[in-house]
């Protein structure tokens, strides 16, 4: 078997060194009833590369890929073009097969890119500091709510109706079990909610999203001011991080914690994972942050170097008193993010954001021109909500059958809320050509 270097001769000689007759003897502590005499039934024997490739390629071929059709699906994950060099760097064994950088002398490569990543995230979000990544945006949001509760020792959290429902559910699941009082607002598809009115002295934090699930934009400055006046922390969530090249940073609006899904930069769609959660906050809260932090220091010769730091917050030191149980981060996804963002640079990120927005403006105008179709939003980044004259889920299915992936029906996210059945979330990025947009328009015209 190609991954197992021991030969039978090796095994015999090693058993002799150990002084036992067989490998079975090494398993003597296993209760007899649990010792399997041979291989587990119901599974095939080992396969060569060609056979494995064919098996998996057959499964892969059953899926419709984003690059192969006019593609407008978003709602928290976005199809962007990633330069080829990004993936080739990730595949370097020194990054791919390296361990968590607990031994800094032999992992300065990993540590330095994490330090660069943290800085990039801080710059993007307009915050002071960022950690070395979370599993994804949704889990990061739950961690942010818990962190806010640690900071202000309050128990109530208000979730905007513009927050992605999956994020809401992760917060409900994760913070609910801790006994937090979670006040999720109704889906705010008209961008009409007023959260300031809900803030009180029991409120620990308020969670808003920009652009919202429905694509709406809003200035949170007033909300932040109102919240801070009552000791409430404002958590701003961004699920499309490319938007930060065009929209004002959450930090500039006064956010206390910013959580982003970082997938859009450097990472493929991957059917939902692995993704990378960005987590940024103000300096004063740093010791309440969850997750790994990379910090700058000096070595024995006084040279600048990097280490994981403030690990007294973490589970492997603090155990049950840790700020979070998170251990693994999204190292490689963070590396992809960092390399792609380094390639983009200031000019590239801003340019990419503008192209995304321009395509959305163009598409919104095209869709508005279809009889019976209206765009709900007055503003947006690269995704907006369309009101159709039919149920969006059926329209999406019919278009999928015609090889057009038109977007996400709001009803898939809110199956229990009435009145949202005709709403469709449509996202467009730099990958969409005018031909793609026209194909969507034609497709819609046909099925409506």
């Amino acid at each position, binding site marked *: 078997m190609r991954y*197992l270097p021991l030969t039978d001769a090796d*095994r015999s000689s090693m058993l002799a060194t*150990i*002084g*036992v007759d067989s490998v079975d003897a*090494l398993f003597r502590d296993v*209760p007899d009833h*649990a010792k*399997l005499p041979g291989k*587990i039934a119901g*599974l095939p024997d*080992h*396969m060569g590369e060609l056979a494995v490739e064919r098996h*998996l390629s*057959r499964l892969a*071929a059953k899926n*419709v890929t984003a690059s192969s059709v006019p593609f407008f*699906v978003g709602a928290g994950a976005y*199809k962007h073009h990633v330069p080829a*060099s990004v993936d080739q*760097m990730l595949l370097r064994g020194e990054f*791919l*097969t390296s*361990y968590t950088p607990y*031994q800094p*002398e*032999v992992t300065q490569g990993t540590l*330095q890119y994490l330090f660069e990543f943290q800085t990039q995230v801080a710059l993007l979000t307009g915050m002071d*500091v960022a950690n070395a990544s979370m599993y994804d945006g949704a889990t990061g949001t739950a961690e942010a709510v818990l962190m806010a509760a640690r900071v202000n020792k309050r128990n109530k959290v208000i979730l905007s109706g513009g927050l992605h429902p*999956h*994020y809401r559910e992760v917060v409900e699941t994760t913070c609910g*079990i801790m006994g937090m009082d979670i006040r999720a607002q109704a889906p705010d598809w008209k961008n009409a909610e007023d959260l300031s009115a809900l803030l009180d002295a029991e409120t620990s934090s308020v969670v808003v999203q920009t652009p919202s699930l429905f694509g709406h934009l809003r*200035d949170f400055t007033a909300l932040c001011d109102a919240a801070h006046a009552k000791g409430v922390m404002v958590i701003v969530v961004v699920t499309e991080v490319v938007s930060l090249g*065009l*929209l004002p940073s959450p930090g500039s609006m006064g956010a206390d914690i910013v959580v982003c899904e970082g997938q859009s930069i450097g990472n493929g769609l*991957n*059917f*939902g994972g692995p993704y990378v959660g960005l987590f940024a906050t103000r300096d004063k809260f*740093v010791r309440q942050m969850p997750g790994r932090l990379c910090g700058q*220091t000096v070595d024995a010769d006084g040279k600048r*170097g*990097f280490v994981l730091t*403030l690990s007294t917050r*973490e*589970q492997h030191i603090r*155990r049950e008193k840790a700020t979070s*149980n998170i*251990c*693994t*981060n999204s*190292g*490689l*996804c963070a590396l992809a993010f960092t*390399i792609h963002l*380094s390639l*983009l640079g200031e000019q590239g990120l801003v*340019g990419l954001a503008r192209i995304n927005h321009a*395509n959305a403006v163009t598409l*919104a105008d095209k869709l508005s021109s279809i009889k019976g179709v209206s765009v709900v939003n*007055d503003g947006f980044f690269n995704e907006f909500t369309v009101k159709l004259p039919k149920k969006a889920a059926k329209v999406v299915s019919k278009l999928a059958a015609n090889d057009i992936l038109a977007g996400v029906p709001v009803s898939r996210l809110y199956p229990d809320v009435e009145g949202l059945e005709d709403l469709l979330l449509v996202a467009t990025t730099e990958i969409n050509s005018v031909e793609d947009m026209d194909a969507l328009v034609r497709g819609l015209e046909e099925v409506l």
Partner: protein
Amino acid sequence: QEEALIFELDNPGAVGVDLPKPVTTTTRLSGLSPRAGVGLPQLAEPDVVRHYTRLSQKNFAIDTTMYPLGSCTMKHNPRLNEKMARLPGFGDIHPMQPVETVQGALELIDQLAYWLKTLTGMPAVAMSPGAGAHGELCGLMAIHAALDARGESNRRRVLVPESAHGTNPATAAFCGFTVDTIPAEENGRVSVEAVKAKLGDDVACIMLTNPNTCGLFEPQIKEIADAVHAAGGYFYCDGANYNAIVGRVRPADLGVDAMHINLHKTFSTPHGGGGPGSGPVVLSDALAPFAPLPFVVHGKDGFALVEHAKDAGDAQPFGRLKGFHGQMGMFVRALSYMLSHGADGLRQVASDAVLNANYVLASLKDVMSASFEGPCMHEALFDDRFLKGTGVTPLDFAKAMIDEGYHPMTMYFPLVVHGALLIEPTETESKRTLDQFIGTMRHLAEKAKAGDLAHFQAAPRLTPRKRLDETQAARKPVLRWVKPAGSNPAELAQAAE
């Protein structure tokens, strides 16, 4: 060679990507002003590629050297798995596409779930946890939900042996449980008596790692499971060390109710310098109904995805753990690994992992102090008695290994022995490599005993950096680069070198 920070390499005016012009300059931003600037550096592609290539060269990795790293299985990462995960049919599909356009993806998840269930003997598996610790959270939330469903919300005490990974108590606390520590026995095991002494009707579960963090199989595990079950609690098994028993022992046969499986340990998805991981959790019949959303089911038109409680039938999902459906990219890699090994190969994985560890133990126990008599499982635990009087600490010893070309083993963990040195060679190291490693360890142990303290204290010498000042890092945290006021980035880059 020194490498400046990417920010210090800023070359304003350079670009690393070429983008077309926007099709329109009209904006529709609801009155928000476009952002003035972000502050990112600008570099051309050649400089970015060289920067990250050079950074990578400062790392040790499995591809370049043996990692005898106990508590975290660092085995060979086949490139086939990377290739498979990059098939557009897996890498380029969106989690919210209509399910009829992702039938192959759902089938893959279903197949991986089948392998995990068959290998462990467990009836159900929750696929979405994003890492091992996240899997622990999933398991404990399922236990929490099951207890609530039984009307026993008073059960809030969790038993954790002192040898446990830090994530165990952290997870328990994260779920609102209180942690009660079980002391280890002299022989590194947990005794059924010690567990029984802690049981009571407020006990929610026990969290036990098996093989445990001393690298030992818990011989009384079934008795412990039975006792916990008899007392109305559940048995959460930390599956971090599943590599030692995969294909040879089914956790179901040990009485396990929930166990997370680190795909990035046992099934070789790459560590990647710290992630991403993936931590599916196998569940017993008692806990299966509480598995989180979403999950894959066989529907009438192929595979379907249950995303909402109302579609979950009789199940009572405790909620949602992750933004989408789980770490698909890791699922593909893990299934590729499983298919490559097959039932015969996975059994051999455990056999060879255990054989390698025992070979190291047998070959070193005369010069290093083994904490427990063999046989061990996939890890060999030593402590610092052999360094007594030398002045050399386990940390010094480990740093000296670096200069010999090895990543250090895990040190000072588990906490149950003094100055632990935990060695896990894994099954993907050859006997030749082990023999060289053993030779080096013997050489270093003898060098320490011979009194060459300076050699150890100055180690490592051959690395890009010598020992780093972790105290300074924590005392005055510098967690990001800040542009020095009024300075020229080019000068800074040179100054840094």
